[in-house]
């Protein structure tokens, strides 16, 4: 008799890490579509390019580390990192920018720490911050929404052969608000701030990522804890200041639907590897990210702050876990520390 000798449990659910990751990528499609509609094909080209780089980099490192390449590639985690980073990079980015970003995300931020599950920082955000600091010009070259360049232009931009790249650049709503904060008439005159309920164009980007995020929740790929705490932290922080002085401080709605807010809440902060792990820990972790984003956006030197806030809280995650262990059945109180 060919019997299987394995320990219990003998049944397992149908969740697979690879499939989970695929779902995450699927859920970014609405956001990708809106980005393409607003800014042209640049993002699509970048996403594909990033995925190729990620797969190659991951395979190369796995091979060098003597790991079974096929098995580990199948978890799709490198592709998710690539997609997320490519979505965060401006659509005008040349090929080498993505190459450097994705390459360092996979090799430095992930594999050097031991691969999937071992990285303390969100790899996509490490890549993003690295690029932002090294290539501030390329990394802030967003286009004016609606003025999408055609495929040929996007391709030229990608190949870094488009002569007037800098001339194409338009400000994002967050940039504009920063620039004119405190000046009511200037704010009113800024066209990009005249969206339906938040910044022009960008509000739809955020709505699309929100839709994708809800899909993830519905499919139980993520739990509600992180997105809800993230958005609550950001919104509740913005509310009193906006009530106090709506000209100097943007409204909660504007904050929630500008920049990478929804993208960060559903796709970045939810990266389980680098987040806090206990239930309360996750709530605290995400709420603090939200608060930090508001602080940096409103008081700091950068227009958007998702990447910085996430990385900072990645750093704090072990400490948060340290203090937020659940109370085990049969024990009077939760334990602290790691023993």
């Amino acid at each position, binding site marked *: 008799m060919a019997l299987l000798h394995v*320990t219990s449990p003998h049944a397992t659910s149908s969740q697979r890490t690879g499939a989970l990751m695929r779902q995450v990528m699927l859920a970014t499609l609405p956001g990708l579509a809106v980005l393409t509609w607003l800014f042209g094909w640049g993002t699509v080209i970048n996403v594909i390019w990033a995925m190729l780089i990620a797969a190659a980099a991951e395979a190369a490192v796995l091979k060098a580390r003597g790991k079974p390449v096929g098995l580990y590639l199948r978890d799709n985690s490198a592709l998710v990192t690539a997609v997320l980073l490519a979505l965060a990079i401006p659509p005008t980015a040349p090929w080498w920018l993505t190459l450097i970003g994705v390459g360092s995300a996979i090799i430095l931020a992930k594999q050097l720490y031991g691969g999937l599950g071992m990285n303390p920082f969100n790899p996509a955000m490490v890549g993003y911050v690295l690029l932002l600091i090294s290539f501030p010009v390329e990394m802030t070259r967003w286009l004016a929404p609606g003025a999408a360049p055609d495929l040929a232009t996007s391709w030229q931009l990608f190949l870094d052969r488009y002569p007037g790249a800098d001339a194409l650049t338009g400000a994002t709503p967050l940039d504009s608000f920063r620039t004119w904060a405190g000046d009511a008439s200037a704010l009113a005159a800024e066209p990009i701030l005249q969206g339906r309920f938040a910044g022009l164009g960008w509000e739809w980007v955020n709505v699309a990522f929100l839709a994708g995020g809800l899909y993830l929740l519905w499919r139980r790929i993520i739990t509600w804890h992180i997105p809800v705490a993230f958005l609550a932290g950001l919104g509740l922080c913005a509310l009193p200041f906006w009530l106090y002085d709506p000209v100097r401080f943007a409204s909660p709605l504007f904050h929630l639907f500008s920049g990478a807010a929804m993208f960060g809440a559903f796709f970045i902060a939810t990266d389980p590897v680098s987040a806090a792990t206990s239930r309360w820990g996750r709530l605290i972790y995400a709420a603090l990210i939200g608060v930090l984003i508001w602080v940096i956006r409103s008081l700091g030197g950068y227009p958007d702050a998702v990447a910085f806030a996430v990385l900072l809280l990645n750093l704090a995650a072990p400490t948060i876990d340290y203090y937020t262990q659940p109370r085990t059945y049969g024990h009077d109180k939760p334990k602290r520390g790691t023993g």
Partner: protein
Amino acid sequence: MSLLSLFRPARTESGRKLHDFHGGIHPPQRKTLSSEAPIRPGPLSATLVLPLNMHLGAPALPCVQVGDRVLKGQILAEASGPVSAPVHAPTSGVVRAIEPRPIQHPSGLDALCVVLDSDGEDRWTALTPCPDYRDMPRAELVARIRDAGIAGLGGAGFPTAVKVNVRDSQRIEQLIINAVECEPYITADDRLMRERAEGVIAGIQVLQHLVQPMETLVGIEDNKPEAIAAMRAAAAGTGIEIVTVPTKYPSGGEKQLIRVLTGKEVRSGGLPADVGVVCHNTGTAWALHRLVTTGEPLISRITTLTGTAFAEPGNVEVLIGTPVADLLAFGGVPQPHTGRLIMGGPMMGFSIENPLAPVVKTTNCIIAAPLSELPEPEPEQPCIRCGACAEVCPADLLPQQLYWYSKASEFDRAQHYNLMDCIECGACAYVCPSHIPLVQYYRYAKGAIRQQAAEHQKADRARERFEARTARIEREKAEKEAKRQARLEANRQKSSPATSVAAATPAADPVADLKKAVGEASSAYKAAVKIAKEAEEQGADNAADLRAEADQLKARADELKIALRDAKANAPAAVAPTAQAAPADPVADLKKAVGEASSAYKAAVKAAKEAEEQGADNAADLRAEADQLKARADELKIALRDAKASAPAPTRPAPASPAPAAPPAVSLSTAPESPTAQANAEDEASAEAERAKRAQRMKALKTAFNMSHKQWKEASAALERAERDGLPDVDTHRARVDKLKKKADLAKAQLNELVEAAKADMKASTGTDLKTLKLQAARAESTVREKTAALATAREAGDEERINVLQQELAAAEQQALETARTLKQAVAEQGLSDGDDA
């Protein structure tokens, strides 16, 4: 943490508030596969295999011999300890063998089994039902349950008699009947309740009668509407409440069910009884019902045969001991079966290594599933820290942390994260998207931790033993030296006639001595009580030991007090017997001593050898002891030779040299051998003789006491009669009574004196005294108790590794308890003391 549960306090129809436990999963039920067909009788196998360790606790002891013809229901093996259960013949036939056979055990080891060849007649032995169990003394009913071999039919197989025998001090608030059956596939309890609800309720009433709970709750998952209806109907008017609990795995876990039904939590490492709850299984209730109505012992059970490989799945009333292979054939599993073969449910069951393994008392399910149904496990991928495991853990652990630390062998950390509270339910591994066999890691870590702990303990014990022995040797040396000095002194004094009378009286004043001893003993007792109390408060695990020690000390103090009283009463009479001494012939005595010493040495060598062969950890100690004995024997031999050589001159230097014997003079006047050796040898020899004499005298005294006591009693009775009837000779009677009483008291006092002396002597000669021995025995027994309790907990938790270890530990502890008891008995016998003497 489900927010919804905060807003939706679940309540049953009867208005009972249900509680929720954290986590849990909803795996596909797959119960209809087996739940729709009625229970059918199982096959009668040609050969039945009955493991002796089907229950939790000490394995049963076979009480039949190979070749014996037995009847159905006849006992095959007896319970062998407080926590044990007998094994009965499931059918009539012939005992073919008593040998190790493959059984279903995670260790994969064979276990001792009684192998029974069925004769096909299935003839019952005579049974005695007890329908009037309510009128029986409680102890008798418990004994009946124990003798019927009934053990928990659900999870751990804990002997039911032990569980129902709740202490009077424990108020049981809830008797919970676990009919949840939350694992997928299994429907044995479901079918049992649907078809035999009355019997189950009647069985529950037996439990009620024994446990006297304030309320009785039967928890059934809401996916068994028929069973619920049947049980409700049967329970109408009995006060037994049928509670529907929401379907969620593992709500049938004992701790989880207690929480769901009562909101109470069993403390980590504790027992349900600690929170006033006792849990029993439906099948157990049914078995009890059978016992009281028909007198049947536990020889069959209902087992679910399921999985798509079965052509005829369903529930079968199978004889315990039936090989799984026979059940596969019976249920129409095509041969050869490939895929999974599981005993138990898909979440917590075990792969069956060998289909010849038999069904045991706890086998609730056999799953034969082809790979298409339960496929091979997928390759393990890295943990993505998704936290899905923590979401579902019913113990509210952080399974991924446990996993990281178990994998890295950082066991301290894993323990810090409460690894030991994991019930191995498998919910975490079920949901893990990376297919990490989490439970396997936990089992590994738990096993390693237990091993470490055991080794630690072993090392500690060895060290303690070593220290004790060194101390004893030192003490012996000192005492011998003191004795020698004392004798020299005595001899010196004897030589001067003026002091000879004084020399005849041993210690100055026995009453004063006793007073001092009483004072010391009672202060020691008080100190011990204090320590024990502290330990108990801090929940130290040696509290029981300390308590036992304190009790011993108390007993001793009491003893001394009595002795003191007696001594006071008979002060003049008491001194006489001890004054006798002086062995007649030193050479003969020495000869005897040599003989004894060398036989002791031989016995010790044998014991050491045996211990070595069995790899016992005290082998080295035994060997050392043997060496010591050998040295002593040699010493004695030399002394004997010397004594023989100088036979004409008396060996005892004292009478020979009237002058005060200064050490140099002695060394000049004796043989070239070391004077100490000789003195020692002499010591031993005379002590031996003294002891023998004393033992004899004690015996005589005992008889005297018994006789006079008896006479006194008779005389008292006669006196009473005389008084009542107003006979004239009342006064004669009274005088006689008084006389006899005095006589008895005197004998008793003398006896006590001797007993004390014997005890002291024993202490001097062996380094231990009765008290220490008793203490050891008490300690060993309390270890056994502790282990048994721990084992019970482990069984409840379904913690297989721990159970293994504990079983072994328990066996060892029992062995030790037996040995200490034997030593104690022997010591008592040797000294001519009997247990009654120190009461």
